[in-house]
């Protein structure tokens, strides 16, 4: 484990315009650019970081939220270690759509045990004065859907951005420790079937 760095794939999902790309940019380059291009399809950025003594490469996947890009983004849900469900606190519709995003993810990522999969919920644009979604409503939703951690962020003024991503990493690592504990040897690879079944296409 010492030479190896673990590669964690974290995917940002949510309606177009909620600030996914801005959040990724803020986190990786610590910049906020109001003239960001619209995301088309799927892009990712890597960030190396040390969390609780672990060297981790965080691979942050940014997706295009618009409906018409669905066929381009869904093939890449598979293999995600964590999903960041994102809405904008000034857009109630984006909040209402979270359930659909979760469903789309679980379906296409082929998650075996959805209830155990680490989701983190981000309510972005908290710097905006006129909120349409209250923190309470958001927390309530998180509690009901699987007790997900909830972060109120602002890509614009950097509020909570790093914290949210680090939480995602922590969630994944704690999951992995459990699985490492459960399956001490790599017996998985000895079984052909699950491997080839989990193969692409």
């Amino acid at each position: 484990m010492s030479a190896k760095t673990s590669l964690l794939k974290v995917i940002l999902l949510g309606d177009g315009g909620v600030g996914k790309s801005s959040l990724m940019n803020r986190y990786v380059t610590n910049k906020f650019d109001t003239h960001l291009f619209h995301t088309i399809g799927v892009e990712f950025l890597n960030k190396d970081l040390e969390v609780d003594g672990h060297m981790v490469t965080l691979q942050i996947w940014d997706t295009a939220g618009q409906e018409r890009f669905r066929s381009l983004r869904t093939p890449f849900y598979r293999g995600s270690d964590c999903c960041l469900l994102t809405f904008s606190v000034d857009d109630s519709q984006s909040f209402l759509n979270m359930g659909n995003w979760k469903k789309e993810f679980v379906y296409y990522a082929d998650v075996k045990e959805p209830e155990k999969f680490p989701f983190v919920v981000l309510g972005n644009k908290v710097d905006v004065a006129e909120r349409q979604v209250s923190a309470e409503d958001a927390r309530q939703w998180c509690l009901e859907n699987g007790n997900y951690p909830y972060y109120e962020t602002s890509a614009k003024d950097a509020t909570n951005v790093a914290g949210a991503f680090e939480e995602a990493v922590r969630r994944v690592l704690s999951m992995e420790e459990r699985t490492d504990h459960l399956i001490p040897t790599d017996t998985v690879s000895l079984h052909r079937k699950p491997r080839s079944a989990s193969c692409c296409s």
Partner: protein
Amino acid sequence: MVHVYNCHPFASQQIVQVEQEPGLLCSGGGVIFVVATGGCKVEAYSLDQEGCPLLCRFATMGTPRIIQYSAIGDYLVTIEDKNNATYLRAYTNWRYQAEEKSRVGVRMLGHLLRGASQRSVAQMEIIEIPLSERPVAVACCPVTGDLLVACEKTLVLFTLRRESQHNLNQLNPQSSFQNTQPSHSKKAVPNSPSNPNVSVLDFERSVILHIPGLGPQQVALCAGYVAVHAELEVLVVKLHSSLDPKTAEELADMNTCVDQGEDPGDFLVLQRHQELLGERARDCGVSVTIEKTGMEETGQYTLSFVLYRRFAPDFFQGCSVEETKLHSLQLHPMFTRNKSMQCPEEPSCVFCFFSLPTTGYLYSLRGGVELLSAYQYPEKVLRAVLTDDLLHVITKSALQCFSVRCAAVAARVEDPYIDTTMRACPPVSLKVCALRMQLFIGLRTMCALGRHVMLLSAADAEPPEEADRATHTRSFMEFREHSMLTDIFLALGIDPTTTPALESLLSRPFLSKKWAGSRPKAPSVTGHGWNLYVVNTVSPITLYHEMVEYSCRYAETHPMGESCRHLLSEAHLILRATLIKPLPTAKGEPRELPEMPTDGEKAQRPTTDAFTDSKAERQVMETAFRENCAQLGDCFSRGNQKDCHLALPYYRMSGLSITEVMSRNRPLPISPCSYGPGFVFYLNHFLLEETDQILSQEAADEIIDIFSQTEPSQLVTVCASPAMADVSPAKVLRRLQHLEQATGMSVPLTVTMATMSLRLDDLRRYTELMEKHAEMLLVYGFIEEPRLLLHGGSGGRDTQVRPTQLANQLRKDQPGLLAAAMVALHENNKVQLEQADQVFKELGCEHNLLVDFWEAVLVASTKEAIIQELLFRLAVVYIDRLTSGMAAPSKLLKSTEDLINSCSHYGTLYPWLRILTPASNTGSQQQEALQKLQSLLCGPSMPIGAVQPLLEQLSLGATLWGLSLHVLCATRRGQHGNCIEKLLDHCPQAIIPYANHHLQETYMALWWQKLLPELCNRTRAETENGILLAALKETLLVVATEISPVEFLELMPDDGTALYFLPHLLACSQRQLLA
């Protein structure tokens, strides 16, 4: 026997500054790609820059297990794992990832959409290629950039596509997949000038091969050839893309008839060695079937078998059964200069290499599959890489370098004149040799690119103290290297201590100054136990010079030894491999992005600098090449071996003049041997060839000396060469007299002596000599050696020929012999008709002897074209002689009588001609010409149509001979009536002989239809003309016997002359009654 030379193909090395221990390695496009063990990042280091700086670093999406780079398309393909799933991905535009913080686009194969035009900045993009099976191995085609993926049971071929941004912008996201037709993409659209790098790569699944039961471990792809190996089997097939569905179907049927249903577990497979070449490989027992992908525009694929090889593990010593596995499968294309100008995308040659731990195999695939070389390694080899010039292999402790025969194959593809007397090249079967063994510690893997060899060493597998010793004690290493080489020699059955050259070779320090001058090769004191080296090979010309140097050393100790020649041959191939390559492009060797080969871009112009550089370089190489050919020529000319004839083509290729070659072959005063057979062969050929070069007297005399010593029987042929014109005749005469004493008299020998006497102006002796043989025998002598009479002309139909001095003399003394000899030469195809004309013209006898020659050829020839030509020519000549009244040639070789008697073309003269043109009528010469012409017209062969126009120029009836010719022609054309009138007009005394001869059979009726009325008319006008009356009488006699009395009565004139007819009517009636 494997030759082991201690050359220095490796020039220098660099250590790549890699931070983490490399796990995967590959190279291409001037770049080394490194993935740290277990890492998820690819680091690209520049090979073109000093110190191999880091170009860029980019993240992969999973943990790569296999990486492979394609220069065409400039993409890196990976097989990578993530969360227990395996993915196949292509990383494109990776060079834009200079700063790691740029966003990376990701898309599925075929989902084209994004691109730099929308971003205005080019962006790295990852293409994920979905597969229904787990990928095991990948390969990229070095010619097309296509991608071959091996899964457990299938091989999937993906065609590389380049989509221009213009096309994509018009597509909306949803329909992008369906709309991206291959028709758009097949022709890559040139890059738009505003955004020159914008074009997006994509792949198209084009064919799937099912190979159940093989268990592929590695694959290779090159120009339609697909190679795959399992643990101990190799299979190579060729995919043919055909747009004709019918033939495709037929072939597909053929393909499916391979038994597929058999479960290998059902019967015991006998493990044994097997090599099946070409279509015979179809019987290998491995089932291969093509699945159609339904992509209409890609056409159909068909399959042919190329090679199958199976090995049995227990047959190999030195390695355990588990270790006996194939590795290093490679398909290697070779492009050559001329062929690539014709079709730049077709490699001239494709080679297939694969390796067992102890033996490597190199096959040539195109134009008939053939095993070129089997490389016997001295110890277990971990990995091998084939390049155009060399084969590099690594063992645990050494990098070794072997010679290859690729250039020998390519040269023969490129130049059909190789292996003729024109040009030569060392044979494909020339034994390969080890050029160098360079020690390293703990080698793991290797890749090679152009003149760079990348090596990964890791010492941590060894016990630490051993690694320590190896690192710090160089003398220990030298000792090991020495003993290892000695072992090899011994293994090959050579005891180095008994061979001084080897002894001295082994005693020299192996780390030569060239090598020691560079950085230390042992792992630097960096603490970590691994290193990534880039070892550069020397330039071909440097290696060439070193080999030549060695060969000289061998030549000193063993002038006739094989090694000298072998080294020179190796050196030859090193130069060839470079000279044969297509002209360099501006970018240098790898054809890389963004210049994917499209129709317009193929003919990339080299930049002027690169061009002049390469031009100068090439001149150096060409000079070296000629020098090498000269040295090889020397080898073959001196040696006494069976290949001595190779001296000729090598000397030819060297560009040396004959005098230079002669001076190189002068025997050393101390040397016991004189001239080698190869040299004599060369001289013989040179002298037989028609060159314009006339040797100086010294050179010519030297040649006489050489042949007197080596092959005196050749002296006659040698003297006959035009190049020997200036030889001193007295000297030759002396030599020839010796020869005559030794071997006895022969016609060519005597004639050659006569020629030399002529040159000495000794006419008396000349005549004496010429009189020694009968003319007939002399003619045979000339057939044996035509160059006694003629020079030039051996080049065929159109080459100029000249008569020799002897021919000139014969014209004066023995013209008949000359003509007879010329006819004999003509009939034996030693001289063409036109060439003979030239000779006679040059001898100044085109008016007499030439005509005699034509007549004689006409008599002798059986070729219709020649006969027709000569008939016409002779007719012209005869007419000319008749009309010009020219001064007649003194003596004709053949009279009309002779000609009539000796061939059918000259017919017997008709009797009436003697009355028309009696012998006294013209001068004797004209008489002869007239008779010959008449005789031709009396013969069956003369084409009247051709002569008629000539005769029409003669004034009609001006002379009786003119009349005779007209009548002959008219008769031949069946215009007998006309002839009758003309004869009655001008020469009535000839009419009855004419009528008797010609008015027969079908023309019989002319007696009474034409001749009788004419005579009646004419006698009525000229009642006293006795000639006419006699003719009339004769005619009536004939008519009375031929027709019935009733018909006769019809002919009776009304006037008083009828009385004249009565006796004949009576005779006619009586005949009738009798019958």
